[in-house]
C-alpha cells in the first residue's frame, strides 16, 4: 500500500509516520509538500501531527487553505482512507472534512503522556482490528485537543457510529477524571459520515513498535490496509487488541 504523508510548513511528525509506514509496516510512503495537488499515486493519506503554520491564530486554520487540501477533499470523496493525527485532525476539522473543532485544553497546558482510549465502534476500516470496549494505549501530545461539537451534531455522530475513540482510565471507564483535555464526551477520535476520514488526537505512530513499549497504534494503520470485513466480528485478530502495556522501559531486555 502506498501512503501519502502531507507536509505543511510547521508539521513535525511526518518523518515519524514515514518511519512506521516503511520500516514497521513494510509499505511504501512519500512525504508530500503542501502545494502539491496531484495525489493520484496514493492509496491512503496521513495528515501528521505538528504545528502547521505555527498553529498561529487557531490550530489548522491556515493550513486548511494549502493547495493540497482541495486534493485531500477530492481524495476523500473517492472514498479512499484519510487519517489525521493530532494537528492533522485539527486541520481536517478546520477544513470541514470532519465535524467539530478543537479548543485549548481545559487545563490550559500542553499535555504529553500515555493515555488509555476506549474503542467505541469498530464498524469501520480504521478500528476493524479491534473490538468495541477494547482499551488502547497511545501517547497524547497536544495543547489544543479539547474536542467540541454542538449537541445536535454530537447526536448525529453518535447514531452514525462516527465517534470512534474516547479517553478512558486503565479500567476502560470513560470518566471525567480520565478526560485529559476537557473534550466533550471524552472524545478522542471521530470519523466522517462516509467512514473513510478519521481524525484523532492521540499518536498511533508513536505506539507502533515494541521498543517504544506499545503497539496498539499499529492496529489502526493495519486496519487501513485491510479490506473492511463484512461484520464487526473479527476473531482472529482480536487477540492482539488491548495489548497496551506500561512497559516503557526495558521491556525487551532479556534477563540472562
Amino acid at each position: 500500500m502506498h501512503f501519502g504523508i502531507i507536509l505543511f510548513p510547521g508539521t513535525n511528525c511526518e518523518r515519524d509516520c514515514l518511519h512506521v509506514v516503511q520500516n514497521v509496516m513494510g509499505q511504501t510512503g512519500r512525504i508530500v509538500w503542501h502545494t502539491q495537488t496531484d495525489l493520484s499515486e496514493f492509496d491512503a493519506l496521513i495528515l501528521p501531527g505538528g504545528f502547521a503554520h505555527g498553529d498561529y491564530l487557531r490550530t489548522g486554520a491556515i493550513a486548511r487553505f494549502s493547495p493540497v487540501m482541495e486534493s485531500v477533499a477530492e481524495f476523500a470523496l473517492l472514498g479512499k482512507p484519510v487519517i489525521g493525527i493530532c494537528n492533522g485532525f485539527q486541520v481536517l476539522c478546520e477544513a470541514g472534512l470532519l465535524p467539530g473543532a478543537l479548543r485549548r485544553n481545559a487545563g490550559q497546558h500542553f499535555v504529553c503522556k500515555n493515555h488509555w482510549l476506549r474503542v467505541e465502534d469498530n464498524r469501520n476500516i480504521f478500528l476493524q482490528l479491534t473490538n468495541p470496549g477494547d482499551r488502547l494505549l497511545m501517547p497524547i501530545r497536544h495543547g489544543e485537543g479539547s474536542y467540541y461539537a454542538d449537541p445536535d451534531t454530537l447526536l448525529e455522530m453518535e447514531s452514525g457510529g462516527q465517534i470512534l475513540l474516547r479517553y478512558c482510565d486503565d479500567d476502560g471507564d470513560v470518566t471525567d477524571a480520565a478526560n485529559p483535555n476537557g473534550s466533550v464526551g471524552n472524545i478522542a477520535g471521530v470519523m466522517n459520515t462516509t467512514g473513510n476520514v478519521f481524525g484523532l488526537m492521540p499518536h498511533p505512530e508513536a505506539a507502533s513498535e515494541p521498543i517504544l513499549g506499545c503497539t496498539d497504534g499499529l492496529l489502526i494503520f493495519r486496519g487501513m490496509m485491510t479490506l473492511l470485513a463484512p461484520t464487526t466480528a473479527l476473531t482472529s485478530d482480536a487477540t492482539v487488541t488491548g495489548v497496551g502495556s506500561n512497559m516503557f522501559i526495558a521491556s525487551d531486555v532479556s534477563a540472562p
Partner: protein
Amino acid sequence: MAIAEINVTLKPALLDVQGKTVLKALHQLGHTSVQNVRIGKFITLEISDALAGPALQQELDRMCQQLLANPVIENYEIVITATPGSQPGLAVTAPAPAMAVTSPLLNP
C-alpha cells in the same frame, strides 16, 4: 488607510475554561466584584485605502468567515475606524451579528 478592529469571541453556549481560570485568579487577588470573564481575540487590521465603504465591510466579513474566526465555536464583530489622527469623527461602527455562514470549502 482604514483600521479594522475585530473581536472574536467564543459562542455564548460554550464554556470558556480560560475565562473561568482567570476569574478564579482575579478572585484570589481580591477582585471579588468580577462576576464573569470571557476571553477572545482582538485582531487589528490595517487596510489600504483601495477598499472602503460596503466593499470593505464585505471583504472583512469574508476574511472573518474564511480565516479569522471559526464559525463552529466563535462569533465575531467588526469595527472599522479611520486611520488614527485622520478624521476620527468619521469612525464607522458596524457590528456584525453572530454569524456561522459556512464557506464552500467547509462542507464540500
